[in-house]
């Protein structure tokens, strides 16, 4: 929202703004802020902004007064509520924290007055005012309840819910729903949860005469389900809750039925283990909905079963095939038991395709949801699904009606992941020829689209070195290639699927050895893909992207035999990229197209560089193009001027690795783009990629990188201290410190103090982990970055006369190692890096650190644990550490 950005002090409009806004005037300003006249609107927005700056408390009081007042127009009441809401919450995390602090520090009386106004608005006859107030109350609660403020809120909402007029009751239930969405379950005590649930369930029950109230209650329950752990553990309460939800799925009101099914979907993942007594009834309800109800309801009914599949796939994966394993939640095999009825129901949905669904990116309908669910069922039950689906395929695949042929093909494609190759390969061997012929001859585009997709799935799951009996032989390989290349001339959506099939065909030959069956067709495949990228309609159905992606995979999986052909591709792609940087004066639409194409071409070059750079013989042949390529990358950066292209940056990293020390000649020109990339906080992926490229450059240039280190280190340290930088970029920055130190050796001395201080504070923060799995994963990434930095620094300083500069840091580093060891939540990567750091410390400091090392837990328990690790990398690092320690303490 414009209202929260800082005012521009030089704006001439500000001079005309009055210092104080009166209640009478605020209405006018709010109306003006919605005026269709841009100048009027702008002036009003400036006034609001100004007043907010001048006197926030007064401003908020005015707004709440506006919202509560029945005399005011509905538009200004709504806008007041919206501005209030935006004064409490923001998408940006940093901004959000500021707003929370600002609200908490406001005058208590003013806040009470505002909150009273909000609660009063809930009984307004104007529905927009009520609804806005509901949302604002939830935002205030989201801030205050975790701070133990506004304890009376739930009580006052519920105190007279039964006596309230219908519209106020509806608003109260809606508020409870938003409240549950906003606050976490642990800030509301069980007693209040019980009261909320009681009110909500009563509002949902069939005896509630008003549909709006019943709908609000059902939606509120959806948000409140996360609070109901205790209630779902109590048989009576759970029975009651489930009964009310199931009854609501039969409501005459479609919105209520849909909301009730949404509750069932949520219950299926939150309370999977409690569902056994109800699953038969739920099946009956969902089957009826899928067959008879309106689409939004039917989609939710299918989603219920998809969600059950998700749960069981997760649980079975956790078992890891070991059915005696004690997972927290047992598998109830609901899907396995349901398939005799579930699979026929899903197969029926496949026949309900929409015309043109394949051209519409966002399409989502019963047939698609049903196919998706069928695919999940196949992954859940494996082989058991095959006999249930095969008759449907056989019956429909040759039918006159395209819907039947498409549905049969879709069913086949859907079950290709899950069942064993032994079960599927005989089917595929029979079907493959039919599919290849359908792809060229079927008169219907839908059928061809799905056929190409199915072929892609066949190659993805049943073709490759992991599969024992190959489905692709010398006999049919040529035919497959010919058909796919032919199909790449079809309509964009079919051609895109054909590219996808070719992608997986190539991927399956990735580990084929020195000679690939695709070698004879390599030239033709590459030519066809390039032709596709030049099609007039290549931008439809992301066809051009798919063609380049497939070209990339074909290059990645190519063998030595075709290396000369890959080399020939280099000048071709160079020319294409050259053409994109030629154009001048582009419209913004053309610029976007150009940038997209440059991305694809840089991506393709990156793959080629990595491929040819990985073997000595091809590397030297390729390097003749290095100057030309680097020149083009610099032109790509220049086109974009404001920002650096991530794809070009990734490609430059690969180029630096291939060229080695010679890369130094590009540095004077390239450096400013490197710096620009490091400064790009908004597109944090670009920043992260650039940090990685700094590492590549360090390894390529070694001590020749020294002249650029001041700039790089300054920027990296600046990035670390910024709040705006996405957290995922911090670990690679630390690793990058290690890369730099390893490259420049003792020259790192001038950054040592700064780097070590940043590392030390990060180490202190990441020693202990609290939070969810995602946070723990992040902390481990951070630890790994920190440890890689320490490794690089120790090894960089080794054998230099300045080794003793590191001695003062040793106690802290050992303490960090001991600390994370004691936490017992390291992942394997961290473990490997950590034990390596212990070795590096011992190796570099030697006898200076002998007694410190011997005192550390890491050098005993942790080291022993790593030495007996199953993980080869951990074990290897541990052996290095043991050696280094043994040397350090024996000298």
């Amino acid at each position, binding site marked *: 929202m414009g209202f929260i950005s800082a005012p521009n002090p030089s704006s001439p409009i500000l001079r005309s703004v009055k210092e104080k806004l009166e209640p009478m005037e605020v209405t006018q300003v709010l109306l003006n802020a919605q005026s269709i006249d841009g100048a009027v609107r702008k002036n009003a927005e400036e006034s609001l902004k100004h007043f907010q700056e001048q006197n926030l408390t007064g401003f908020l009081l005015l707004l709440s007064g506006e919202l509560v007042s029945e005399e005011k127009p509905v538009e200004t009441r709504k806008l007041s509520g919206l501005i209030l809401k935006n004064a409490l919450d923001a998408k940006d995390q940093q901004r959000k924290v500021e707003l929370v602090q600002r609200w908490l520090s406001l005058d208590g009386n003013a806040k009470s007055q505002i909150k009273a106004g909000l609660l009063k608005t809930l009984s307004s006859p104007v529905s927009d005012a009520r609804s806005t107030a509901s949302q604002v109350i939830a935002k205030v609660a989201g801030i205050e309840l975790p701070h133990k403020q506004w304890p009376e809120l739930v009580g006052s909402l519920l105190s007279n819910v039964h006596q309230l007029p219908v519209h106020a009751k509806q608003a109260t239930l809606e508020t409870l729903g938003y409240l549950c969405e906003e606050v976490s379950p642990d800030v509301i005590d069980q007693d209040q949860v019980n009261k909320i649930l009681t009110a909500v369930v009563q509002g949902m029950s069939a005896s509630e005469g008003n549909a709006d109230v019943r709908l609000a209650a059902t939606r509120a329950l959806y948000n409140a389900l996360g609070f109901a752990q205790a209630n779902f553990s109590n048989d009576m309460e759970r029975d009651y809750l489930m009964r009310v939800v199931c009854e609501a799925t039969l409501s005459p009101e479609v919105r209520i039925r849909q909301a009730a099914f949404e509750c069932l979907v949520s219950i299926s993942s939150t309370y999977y283990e409690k569902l056994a007594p109800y699953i038969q009834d739920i099946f009956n309800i969902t089957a009826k909905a899928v067959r008879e109800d309106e689409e939004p309801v039917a989609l939710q009914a299918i989603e219920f079963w998809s969600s059950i599949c998700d749960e069981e796939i997760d649980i079975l994966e956790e078992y890891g095939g070991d059915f005696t394993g004690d997972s927290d939640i047992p598998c109830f095999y609901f899907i396995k038991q349901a398939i005799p009825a579930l699979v026929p129901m899903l197969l029926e949905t496949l026949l309900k395709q929409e015309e043109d669904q394949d051209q519409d990116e966002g399409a989502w309908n019963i047939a698609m949801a049903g196919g998706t669910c069928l695919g999940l069922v196949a992954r859940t039950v494996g082989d058991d699904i095959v006999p249930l689906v095969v008759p449907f395929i056989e019956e429909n695949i040759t039918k006159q009606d395209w819907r039947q042929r498409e549905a049969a093909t879709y069913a086949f494609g859907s079950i290709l992941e899950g069942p064993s190759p032994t079960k599927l390969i005989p089917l595929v061997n029979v079907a493959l020829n039919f599919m290849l012929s359908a792809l060229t001859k079927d008169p219907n585009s839908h059928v061809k689209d799905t056929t190409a997709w199915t072929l892609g799935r066949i190659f993805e799951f049943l073709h490759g070195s992991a599969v024992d009996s190959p489905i692709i032989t010398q006999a049919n390989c040529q035919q497959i290639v010919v058909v796919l290349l032919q199909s790449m001339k079809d309509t964009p959506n079919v051609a895109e699927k054909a590219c996808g099939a070719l992608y997986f065909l190539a991927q399956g030959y990735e580990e084929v050895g020195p000679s690939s069956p695709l070698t004879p067709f390599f030239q033709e495949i590459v030519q066809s893909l390039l032709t596709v990228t030049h099609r007039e309609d290549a931008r439809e159905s992301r066809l051009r992207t798919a063609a380049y992606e497939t070209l990339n995979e074909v290059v990645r999986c190519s063998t030595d035999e075709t290396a000369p052909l890959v080399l020939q591709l280099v000048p071709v792609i160079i020319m294409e990229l050259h053409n994109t940087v030629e154009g001048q004066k582009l419209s913004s639409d053309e610029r976007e197209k150009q940038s997209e194409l440059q991305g694809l071409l840089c991506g393709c070059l990156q793959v080629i560089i990595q491929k040819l750079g990985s073997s000595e013989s091809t590397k030297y042949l390729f390097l003749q193009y290095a100057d030309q390529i680097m020149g083009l990358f610099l032109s790509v950066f220049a086109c974009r001027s404001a920002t650096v292209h991530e794809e070009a940056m*990734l490609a430059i990293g690969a180029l630096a690795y291939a060229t080695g020390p010679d890369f130094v000649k590009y540095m004077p020109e390239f450096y400013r783009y490197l710096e620009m990339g490091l400064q790009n906080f908004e597109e944090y992926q670009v920043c992260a990629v650039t940090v990685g490229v700094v590492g590549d450059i360090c390894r390529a240039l070694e001590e020749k990188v020294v002249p650029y280190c001041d700039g790089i280190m300054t920027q990296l340290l600046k990035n670390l201290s910024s709040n705006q930088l996405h957290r995922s970029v911090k670990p690679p920055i630390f*690793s990058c410190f290690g890369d730099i130190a390893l490259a420049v050796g003792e020259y790192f001395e001038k950054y040592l103090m700064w780097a070590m201080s940043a590392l030390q504070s990060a180490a202190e923060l990441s020693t202990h982990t609290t939070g969810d799995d995602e946070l723990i994963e992040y902390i481990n990434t951070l630890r790994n970055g920190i440890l890689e930095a320490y490794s690089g620094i120790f090894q960089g300083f080794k054998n230099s006369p300045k080794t003793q500069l590191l001695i003062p840091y040793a106690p802290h580093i050992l303490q960090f190692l001991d600390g994370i060891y004691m936490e017992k939540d390291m992942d394997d990567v961290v473990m490997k890096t950590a034990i390596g750091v212990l070795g590096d410390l011992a190796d570099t400091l030697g006898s200076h650190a002998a007694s410190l090392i011997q005192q550390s837990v890491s050098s005993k328990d942790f080291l022993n644990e790593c030495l007996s690790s199953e993980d080869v990398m951990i074990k290897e690092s541990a052996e290095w550490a043991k050696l280094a320690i043994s040397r350090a303490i024996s000298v």
Partner: protein
Amino acid sequence: MAPHDIRRPFKRAAISDQQKRRELSLLRQAQNRRDAQQQARCLASSILSLQSAAPESQPEQSDTEIETVPESEQESEAFSKDLDVRQASKLRGPEVRKWFARQLMLPEWMIDVPDRLAQDWYVFARPAGKRCFVVSSNGTTVSRQRNGSILHHFPSALPAGAKIRDGSGSAQSYCILDCIFHELDQTYYVIDMVCWNGYSLYDCTAEFRFYWLNSKLEESGACNAPSHYHKFRFSAVPVYNCDSSGLYSAYTGVGPYAKDGLLFYNKHALYQTGNTPLALVWKDENCSQYVIDTDGKGEIPSQQQVVLELQDDRKLVTSDDPPVLFGCLDGDIIEKSGLHTGNLLRFAIGDGGLSFADGKLEKADLIYLGKSNRARAFADSYSKVLFQFMVRHSPLKIDDLLASINSANDQEKTPSDIEMVG
């Protein structure tokens, strides 16, 4: 609720090549970082090890076979310090033999029993055969004898020892093993480990090196029967703590190899090149066929023979550091036989024998025989001469060793009752 957030219609292509490119780049970078780190760890340690392996005070070890130009000596010495073993393996001709000849740890002969034998020492039966250095690197394995000459050039299962596809074999990886090649079963018995898989063990204690040797050698598959990519079998030797039962086992135990005496290693000693008193060799007729040195025809000469080095000032010295003086050669003989400084000369010990004062050699009755065999790289060490002398007159017996261990067990001070001279 909108279509499920995470439920992407699965008929849409699942591939995002950009994400894949990003991930593959990260993977490549992580791999490169690992390689760089690994290289730093290995390189650094092997340079260090060479610094300690090429001590400045090394006595001139000229050999008739290795033509040494004195002027280049200084230069090649400095050169070798910055060299790691992989570069050393690229040296050609005399340089390489010279380099390798300096890398072995040479045990002294046991002429008295060290203190705390049971606590601080290991004992094992030395396999009979050629002492050699086995180096695996760049997909090949080379064994070199003490004088630097190549014994075998072969593929082995040691890390980097054969050209086979192996993901773990990095360019940095190499091994240096101290071995004895046992002809009878064509096996390399590994008696010490100097570098393993790129990591140097020079600065590690014997205790650690033996632990490492035992765990790593087996793991590598080098102990397996010979095959196409593994021409010779390697084997560790059983090493015992030198208490009475350990000593007994080493002395009487029947192993797969013919014994040639016992080796004693101090547990706390690092791998030190050249002669060291922290590793000792001892023999008697029960555990060795070669107790008394034989001459070129394989017969035991009636008089003990020694090889000494001729120095500038006509002095005759041993290969020890510092060298031990045995006497001076007449200017006459030098002139007549055309001898040069650095020549290794063969002498017999006459009836006058060796005489000692305060445990030091006072006088030796030397009879000049001629230049030594061309294959010799070193003069005899002092301890060898003395051991051979004792064997002929008053040998150190296994009972003396046992007695020393037992008396130490009885909390008695180790008696110095072993007369060194007859």
